[in-house]
């Protein structure tokens, strides 16, 4: 089986602009001398605004990506390894709108960071008829999302504020006037998987049988605090 060499990409840069978003990106590939290895890197910046007048509904995003492909060719086996590392994150500061933040009280801040590492490892055995290929895929992705908001709330009538988190009778607090609420939504979703699969061929009585076998393991959990809010006077 012949694996085609993946050539390194030439330097490319891209600029895209319209009334709602601006994008700048650049990428380049490098071939490593003496080894059958290519490294491609690229990065980009996106500034997106749903409505240019709205200072709250927009975001600035940075993304970086590194991809490597490495081939080993030996007499009895060949190995292909392709790890990737990706990062995407937002770089917004606190968002305020002076016309609707009730005397510089309302604030909004959202951050998003995602890191992902994937691997593909493929092995072939040209001298072993039974095994066509063995492939291992792994992926780990961690995300860090945080949304923080401070808001002035002016209720039209008094409201009840619960003081307990379990069912039952509890004392309650009454709020008669406006108050400032802090809100936090903290998310840390984590995903990972490992997949191993094999491609086999069995020749029986002049009948070629292709067998695909494998297994997969997944793990997903959110390590964040979720919604957390508290009242402050």
């Amino acid at each position, binding site marked *: 089986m012949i694996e085609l060499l993946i050539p390194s990409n*030439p330097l*490319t*840069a*891209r*600029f*895209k*602009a*319209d*009334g*709602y978003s601006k994008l700048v990106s650049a990428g380049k590939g490098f071939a490593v001398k003496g080894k059958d290895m290519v490294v491609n890197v690229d990065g980009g910046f996106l500034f997106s605004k749903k*409505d*240019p*007048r*709205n*200072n709250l509904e927009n975001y600035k995003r940075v993304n970086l990506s590194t991809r490597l492909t490495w081939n080993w060719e030996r007499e009895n086996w060949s190995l292909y390894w392709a790890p990737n590392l990706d990062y995407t994150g937002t770089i917004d500061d606190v968002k305020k*709108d*002076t*016309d*609707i933040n009730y005397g510089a009280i309302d604030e909004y801040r959202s951050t998003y960071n995602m890191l992902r590492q994937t691997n593909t490892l493929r092995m072939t055995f040209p001298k072993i008829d039974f095994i066509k290929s063995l492939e291992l895929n792994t992926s780990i992705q961690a995300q860090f999302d945080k949304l923080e908001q401070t808001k002035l709330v002016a209720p039209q009538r008094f409201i009840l504020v619960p003081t307990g988190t379990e069912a039952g009778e509890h004392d309650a607090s009454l709020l008669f006037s406006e108050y400032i609420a802090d809100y936090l939504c903290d998310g840390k979703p984590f995903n990972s998987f490992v997949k191993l699969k094999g491609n086999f061929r069995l020749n029986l009585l002049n009948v070629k049988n292709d067998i695909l076998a494998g297994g997969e393991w997944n793990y997903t959990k959110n390590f964040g605090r979720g919604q957390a809010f508290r009242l402050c006077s």
Partner: protein
Amino acid sequence: MSSLLLNVIVSAQNDSLPIIDIRKKITENSSLVIDFAGRTLFNPANKYKLYDYRMTDVKIGAEYEHQDEALVVQKGDGYVDAYLDINTYIPLKDYSFWGGVKYKNGERKNVRFNETSDYSLLYPYLMGDTIGGDMKYEVYYFSGGYAQKRGLWTWGAEADLRALQEYRGVDPRPKNTSTTLNISLGAALQLPFDYNLAFSLRGRKYKQTNELSFYNELGKPNVYHYTGLDTDYARFRGSNDQTHYKGHLFGADISFLPIDKSGFSANLSYDYFTFEKIIKNLNELPMAKASDRDVKAELVYLNSSHPTLSRGVKIDIQLLNRRGTENIFGDPANNNYQQIMTIDMYEHQVTNLSLSGFLEKKESNGIFWSLMPTLTYLDMEESYVNPKKTILYKHLVGTLSAGLNHSFGKFYLKTGIYIKYTHALDSKIDLGSQDFKNFLAPEIVHNYMIASKDNTQIGINPQIGYKLKNNYLIYLGAEWHYGRYTDNINACCSIVNIGAYF
């Protein structure tokens, strides 16, 4: 909104012809001989072999302007922006083509009594309020043209598209999107005595959506729909803040010009532009309309037969008349306003006569210099019918420009300087009865006081370039313009850019 996608891959020029020094190309392409008879270039067929050499200019730059007080209140008292500008002209054996791309992103400062974009095009039917503020803008511009010669005929076509977005992130919040598409087609017939008779037709489609929002819940000011001088359409004053404009232009011109750019040339052109202002909140009510009739004529004598000396003289006339028409409506039924009348209420007349000349010489040491004096008579009159209001002024403007190009070693210097003096011959303002309080009158008077008085403007634009191995020239350029107006009001504009010619 159109989008700009630009992949930048730099490649070297690959001509099979002998390589001409890039500095010689720049000098030849910037000769005054080329666009002294500027009106003939309205016709794309006349751009065939406009320049002898292929050239591309790529530059990025930044501009800054500050005025002590706004010269025109509705345009603001300054701006700051950054831009990317690419232009190319490619003359080949039987055809030429050209194109350009421009992107600009900036902010106009302190724009007041005007929340509409393209003030110079849509006056006086603007929308505004008493607050105003800084206005961010983005401009996308694309152009392209083609001209081909077959036998005695040359034909050409050209189109350009400009998309503009302006907005503000604090109250009052306009969001304006305007699109201008120009197309022109032209042809030229070669006559027996080395002259071309050329004619062209052009059209324009213009649109602007002009929407104002207020995010603050505590209240908002009145929104005004101006109708000229210090008047507004009082009936629709209030909270009608969604408008749009649509317009179109038809034009034609005929010109007579020498093939070798030496001799007499003449051009006569006529353009008719009209636009309508529509208030969307009132069920697409057509509030007003304006129409321009613009006649231009030019007579030029050029002598560029001598290899090192060129000279020319030109007489240029422009007569522009804008008429504004207001529609009158009856009582609404189910938000339907019945139009009952149309009245011509506004007129703006501009007469512009100018006499200019130029002298361009290449010295034996390689220095290339030019002089261009111009004398212009400008007569402007603006009037409103009822209540009767008038503004008029007459100016005599004298301008002297000089230019210099010189190559030394691997360097290249190109610079220009000018001085312009405007002398007011006559001026008058009459805004009629001031019995009722009119908030806009002080601003109209302010604009008039500056425009109708003497002023002096000077400017310089040096550019220094360095020639690279592959016949590229990278350069650093700057411009500085300064104006001194009545009451010691100063206006200063600075531009810096870096770029490359190849």
